[in-house]
């Protein structure tokens, strides 16, 4: 029953189009500018250009601004922490869900409650710890702390997921003689793809963009991550825009590409992770 006027429909579509433009154009502009020569940028501000196309900005930012180091650091820190969180949380989540052991409820509450305090409570003591262990300015420091940051939520997601696997599945396997480990590795894990991808996405994205610990722990260029390096480019800095856009592109485009391809899992991961968090 179309009770609304044509004008209203036009307004709605116009507003929607506006939202798309406001969302997309800054990112497109970033990419256009990253590939432009300064001369072309002065001449043509808004649109992409083929004449003024250059890879020079990327070359400058990747080598002279050392983004190849920062990219490497971000990649290693994010991946390793994601791996450790996934491993630890899948084991722990299964233990909480299926392997009854004494005090499991209390332990679970303790682990979860850590999540409800703001990260700032942990920053100074963690800094003191890492300094004492001589681990400041190291990737290890990022690995350890990012694992800690990601564990509670991951364990929560894992445990909830394992609750949904009917116990008949593992019970029938055990009647056939399989021990707990076999059940876990051969049956449960292959079933857990959605929970695992959820944990992987949430953690990788979180680690990739993490800023405050990155900036407190690693001040030397050799171990900085991308977000920390981006602080060269705050509103108070005076770096050429085309370099800034190239740096931003390096920081953003890989993630956007992975997102567009694995879109379904991303949205599911964020929504589930946040609703459960």
């Amino acid at each position, binding site marked *: *029953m179309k*009770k*609304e006027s044509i004008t209203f429909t036009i307004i*709605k579509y116009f507003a*929607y189009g506006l*939202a*798309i433009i*406001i*969302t997309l154009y*800054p*990112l497109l502009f*970033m990419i256009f500018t990253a590939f432009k020569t300064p001369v072309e940028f002065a001449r043509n*501000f808004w649109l992409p250009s083929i004449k003024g196309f250059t890879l020079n900005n990327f070359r400058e930012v990747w080598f002279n601004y050392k983004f190849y180091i920062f990219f490497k650091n971000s990649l290693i820190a994010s991946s390793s922490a994601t791996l450790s969180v996934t491993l*630890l949380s899948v*084991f*722990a989540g*299964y*233990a*909480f869900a*299926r*392997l*009854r*052991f*004494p005090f499991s409820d209390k332990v679970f509450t*303790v682990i979860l409650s*850590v999540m409800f305090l*703001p990260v*700032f*409570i942990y920053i*100074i*003591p*963690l800094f*003191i*710890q890492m300094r004492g262990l001589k681990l400041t300015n190291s990737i290890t420091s990022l690995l*350890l*702390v990012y694992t*800690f940051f990601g*564990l509670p939520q991951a364990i929560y997601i894992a445990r909830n997921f394992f609750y949904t696997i009917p116990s008949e599945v593992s019970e029938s396997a055990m009647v056939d003689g399989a*021990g*707990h*480990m076999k059940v876990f590795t051969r049956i449960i894990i292959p079933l857990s793809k959605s929970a695992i991808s959820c944990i992987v996405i949430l953690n990788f994205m979180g680690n990739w963009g993490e*800023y*405050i610990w990155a900036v407190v722990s690693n001040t030397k260029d050799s171990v900085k991550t991308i977000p920390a390096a*981006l*602080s060269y480019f*705050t*509103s*108070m800095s005076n770096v050429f825009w085309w370099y*800034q*856009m190239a740096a*931003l592109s390096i*920081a*953003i485009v890989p*993630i956007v590409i992975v*997102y567009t391809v694995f879109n379904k899992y*991303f*949205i599911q991961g*964020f*929504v589930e992770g946040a*609703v459960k968090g």
Partner: protein
Amino acid sequence: MIKLNIKNTTRGQMLGIMFVLPSLAFIIIFGIIPIISSIRYSFTDWDGMTASTFVGFENYLNAFKDEVNRKAIVNTFILSFSVVSLNLTVGFLLANFLSGIKGRLAEAGKVILFIPHILSFAAVGVLFSFIYSSTDLGLLNKVISVFGIEPFPWLGSVYTAMPAVILSHVWKGFGFDMLIYYAGIMSIPVNLLEAADIDGATGWQKIWNVKIPSLKPVTQLLVVLGFVKTMLTFTMVMFLTPDGGPSKSTEVVATWFYKQSFTFWEFGYGTALAIILALLVLVVTVVLRKILREEV
């Protein structure tokens, strides 16, 4: 059967403990112990290097007297309230619109509009530093120059700095609220909406009388989640206004904590600020939950 159970129980229990131990170790070493340390530090005057002195509640008292801290708390609330309101509104309106279209357009819309949410705060901060740049090359200034207006210092004026910060947060965050609302709208029982149609309800009436009431739980979730998240914002503000903005109009509790701790090296005062922030978040969560529950 009984023998099998006993054997598996103790073995299962031991396995369970082993499975949990590594995670528990992480939580205790990097979580529980730092919490205790934080509380301890907050009662001291310490620069992180030399010996610390016990000062009791002095840090907490100073936090009340600290004018910047008081401003920061007010700013944090202004920011959180504005961002949440806007995210909810924009998110809902777009979700409602998308729920009315089918096929490729709707799918593409959801994918595109969620992109800002997956970007890191640091990247969005740099992007908006450019958009808000006070030079004539900043994106916003370029836009208004089309209308003949002179370049404006968006982040440098006390009237526009906070709104600018608010809008950056909204740009990044609305997609999340939109998706949650979309899922909510799509799960409203079809007969509810059909009944409204039969009663001759207009689009707006359907929204007010059917959709929004049905989405109360979703709204409650988004409000609490969004408010707390924004109260803890740090990175975006640091990138947009590293110095706290004109007359500290964009200094928030998190950024002030960082500056006290790692620029002024006041670890004692800093941890006290962090603990105060944690308490504020707790109070807000409880209060919000209470208020929102009564509306039902």
